[in-house]
């Protein structure tokens, strides 16, 4: 089991590094998709079937495809390269990501889940996820629904001014 987890972790790392380091926009997007897929595999390996497949469906099937679509639409000429890997403007980016990483690492460390053995929760099945979603988490669920609807309408409104990119905008918001 551990070996599988390490292989997946390695995949995720390689994919993420490739996303940032590769100088070809399309390769970046595809590495991102691979990273998402590996993340889905991680969930599956940990026994979270539902989340795992949702991860693949939403991130690989929709988000990555949209990123790719946007690349196709916006930068046909610049697709092959996106400037040098190291430049001064990257310093800010490195700072921000280090900050985010630090915060998360601190939170994980604080929560204590790294100490002691991690107890596997009982197998969750679809039924209980559904019941939880529609009982305890009903309000957040509905709020998310409203938010997405607002985003959808907003996207359509934006698209109105630019009829050409309209159809793609409205698809973007379905996620």
């Amino acid at each position, binding site marked *: 089991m551990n070996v599988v987890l390490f292989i997946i972790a390695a995949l995720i790392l390689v994919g993420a590094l490739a996303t940032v380091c590769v100088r070809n926009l399309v390769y970046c997007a595809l590495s991102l998709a691979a990273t998402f897929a590996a993340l889905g595999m991680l969930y599956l390996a940990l026994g979270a079937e539902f989340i795992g497949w949702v991860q693949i469906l939403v991130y690989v099937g929709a988000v990555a495809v949209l990123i790719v679509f946007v690349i196709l639409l916006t930068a*046909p000429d610049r697709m092959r390269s996106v400037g040098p890997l190291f430049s001064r403007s990257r310093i800010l980016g490195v700072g921000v990501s280090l900050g985010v990483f630090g915060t998360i690492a601190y939170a994980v460390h604080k929560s204590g889940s790294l100490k002691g053995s991690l107890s596997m929760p009982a197998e969750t099945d679809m039924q209980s996820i559904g019941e939880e979603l529609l009982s305890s988490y009903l309000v957040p669920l509905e709020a998310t629904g409203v938010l997405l609807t607002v985003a959808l309408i907003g996207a359509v409104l934006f698209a109105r001014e630019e009829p*050409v990119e309209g159809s793609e905008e409205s698809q973007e918001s379905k996620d």
Partner: protein
Amino acid sequence: MTSTEEVESISEKSERLLNISMGPQHPSTHGVFRMKAVLDGETVVKLTPVFGYLHRNHEKLAERTSYLGNMPYTDRLDYFCSLTNNWAYALSVERLAGIEVPERAEYLRVITAELTRLQNHLAFLGFLLNDMGVWATVLIYGFREREKILDLFESLTGARMMCNYMRFGGCRCDVPDGWVEEAKRITDELPGVLDELEQLLTDNEIVVARTQGVGTVPGRKAINAGLTGPVLRASGVNYDVRKVDSYGVYDRFDFSVPLGSVGDCYDRFMLRLLEMRQSLNILKAALNELPSGPIINPKAKNRNLRPPAGEAYGRIESPKGELGFYLVSDKSGTPYRYRVRPPSLVNLTLLEDMCVGQKVADVVVILGSIDIILGEVDR
């Protein structure tokens, strides 16, 4: 129509526009035709037709060949309708040299011309639907019927497509035994086939959606651009050379000219169907009334024809529009000037106007609805 400067300024400003070259090798340009299209997403912003890939020096060749020697060359203009090409050329030479045509020959010419129109329109329907993405179903239905007509041509002239049938002052050979009966049988069968095609196509929701409101040409614009044939009549202009000139013996037949109202691809497509019914009326009457007599004016000189100096223009209603031959004679054995007015080329002039603002997929349908043959466009 968007002016050229305007389009160029757009293409300089925006990176969104995509230049795409449809043809000369492309599945649906009906030969070696090329369209340089500028696309904004799926919408056509600009479209430039490029032709000449099939140029074979037809007119200049004709000026170095004897009058009779040109007859087989005319077969190769619109290679789907060699008989009407023959007729238009024969008509202008007859005008130039003042040759009379016997009655039986005139009837044979009408019969072969209307058969040509039928087979051309049948093939047209198939190709148009192919351009819309039917996997050759309608095309092969059309070709099944066209084949019977080509068999008729073969038994009459010896060739299926390159007929070389007309001569100055008549036709090359008389009908073989049983030909008229066979032709009658086919003309009696065709209305059923047309019913079938009409039933399959005219109410098909996707065909309607793909053709209605696509590539609309108003009547006035069509006249100004010099369009002729079904493309012009689809815009509601009543102009048919068979009625206007009554060349041959067309004034003896009772037929009407179908006219559209909107001038879009659907009208152009429907007009062909309706025209085929009218052709069948003419054919039926002509086959019944076919008089006996000589098939060629015995006084007409075909070989070594040296018409008196002068000029003549003969035009007929070919399946694609007004096909004209303009000839100038200097009393020698070859035409001094030989000029073809090809309906396919002239009908193409409005292609950009029809296509701008439409989707890429419409371009193909519009081109198909004009019904061009590259052999005639490029000559």
